[in-house]
């Protein structure tokens, strides 16, 4: 069982282009020789395709599997919002610094790149019989998470959460109460008591609609 899981991990690494030398040769050989390995290899790419586009090019006999996978993904996706990827990471405030030293610069826990990976991670759980990624033991580790995020994560890297910062954070509810808006505006008038919100903060407040006068 452990052997099988290890082999599947090798296939995962192979598809990520992470294998070299002997490991590479051995895994390629295994994939070409056994039906089970070939199936794993194909499913692995299929999962990647579904996650990336939702509409992969597949042969007719894969379509049933694809349908069920998409269904499972739809079921999993709402749960993902509650789980929130960042909670998977240690909540140490110094963490951001540590990550930089690890070579992954400036990625915040909730940046969309990481969310994508988590989607990949959860999708893999829904098809856990197919690909035995080591998510259970490794989910606390960002570098491990990167390995889970098969195929071309590179192509999908957006600027750090510019479009949706705070996604995956606690739900952002702000009831539009004119009284509260007025108080927010009054607070902003003195936002300049903060050094960061000096001239630059003025721009932020003048631009931001929330609680605008």
């Amino acid at each position: 069982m452990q052997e099988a899981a290890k082999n599947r991990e090798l296939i995962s690494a192979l598809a990520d282009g992470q294998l070299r030398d002997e490991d590479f040769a051995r895994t390629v050989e295994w994939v070409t020789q056994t039906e089970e390995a070939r199936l794993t290899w194909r499913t692995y790419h299929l999962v990647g395709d579904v996650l990336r586009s939702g509409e992969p090019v597949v042969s007719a006999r894969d379509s049933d599997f694809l349908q069920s996978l998409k269904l499972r993904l739809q079921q999993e996706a709402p749960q993902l919002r509650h789980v929130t990827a960042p909670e998977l990471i240690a909540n140490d405030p110094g963490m951001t610094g540590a990550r930089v030293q690890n070579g992954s610069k400036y990625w915040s826990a909730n940046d969309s790149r990481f969310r994508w990976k988590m989607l990949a991670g959860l999708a893999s759980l829904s098809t856990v019989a197919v690909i035995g990624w080591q998510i259970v033991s490794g989910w606390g580790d960002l570098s491990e998470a990167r390995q889970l995020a098969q195929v071309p994560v590179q192509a999908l890297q957006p600027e750090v959460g510019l479009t949706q910062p705070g996604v995956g954070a606690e739900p952002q509810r702000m009831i539009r109460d004119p009284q509260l808006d007025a108080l927010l505006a009054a607070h902003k008038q003195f936002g300049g008591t903060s050094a960061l919100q000096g001239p630059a903060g003025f721009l932020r407040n003048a631009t931001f609609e929330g609680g605008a006068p």
Partner: protein
Amino acid sequence: MTRYIAGLLLMALSATAMAQTTITAAAPAAVDRPIAERSVGDWLQRMHDASRQRAYVGTFVVAGGGRLSSARIWHVCDGTQQMERVESLTGAPRSTFRHNDKVLTFLPESRVVLAEKRESLGLFPQLLQANSAAIAQYYRVHEFGSERVAGFEADVLELQPVDSLRFGYRIWIEKDTGLMVKLQTLNGRGQVLEQAAFSDLQFEAPVSMTKLAQMMSHTEGYKLEKPEMRKTTAEAEGWVLKQVVPGFQPMSCYQRSVKGSAQSQHEHTLQWIFSDGLASVSLFIEPFVARRHGQPASQALGATHTLTRRFGDWWLTAVGEVPTETLAAFAQGLERQK
């Protein structure tokens, strides 16, 4: 799968426990950073000088709380005078003009122009000097090399809070000018709560101060509104903060009219302002009115959090770019003296 979920729960629990411990033991830790790095004060001074010495035109984008707002910015400075025009590109049309500490916001739809004085903008240099020591006590600065923003190379640094009573900030500072070109507000888990950045930026742009001044003076056809304000002290108004929130100093206190509570112009709201140098908190205290004030609640919009609470005949609304726990600490420490 079960192990996975159990792990998540454990993580969430330990996060809560951690947050609680840090709040109760919120004493600032010692500041230790490599000597070679610039201090918080150096960086802030550099950023401040940038806005004083440069002219630029750009598009500024603020994202947080599920919203994306943007505005066109014109900034000009002749060494002594600063002028700025901010034209909103999203939401209701809004033009904001700033001449040093004087701010006019034109709302063309309601034909209203709001006139305010941003005392703190005028005071900024002094404020900066007074604050940088306090800031260094509660935030550690880390430099993270450089990155490109809006086409410019920028130094990246992070101000990490030493406790859980404040948020962290990641700042991108343009290498040549020192202008802050991007700012992220981060919670204790490193999540981006809010982000503000220039999406395009042009330095040494031909911005005419005279032209901006002309636009700013075109108030015909607009109704001028000014918030009524009277400087006071919390003590004089019968309020005291019995339990101080670490790092937050009282800055000023006003009795003011607040738009929205318009029905009774006589009613005034007390605004007591605190700051730790980077984040600010306003405590608004007004008489409790059952039909207007609902249940105590807390909300968040981007990095701005609010908390409401009833104090007998009074109603408190705490607002600030701080975690809800910090607002709760303020509410807990507040006491009526009279």
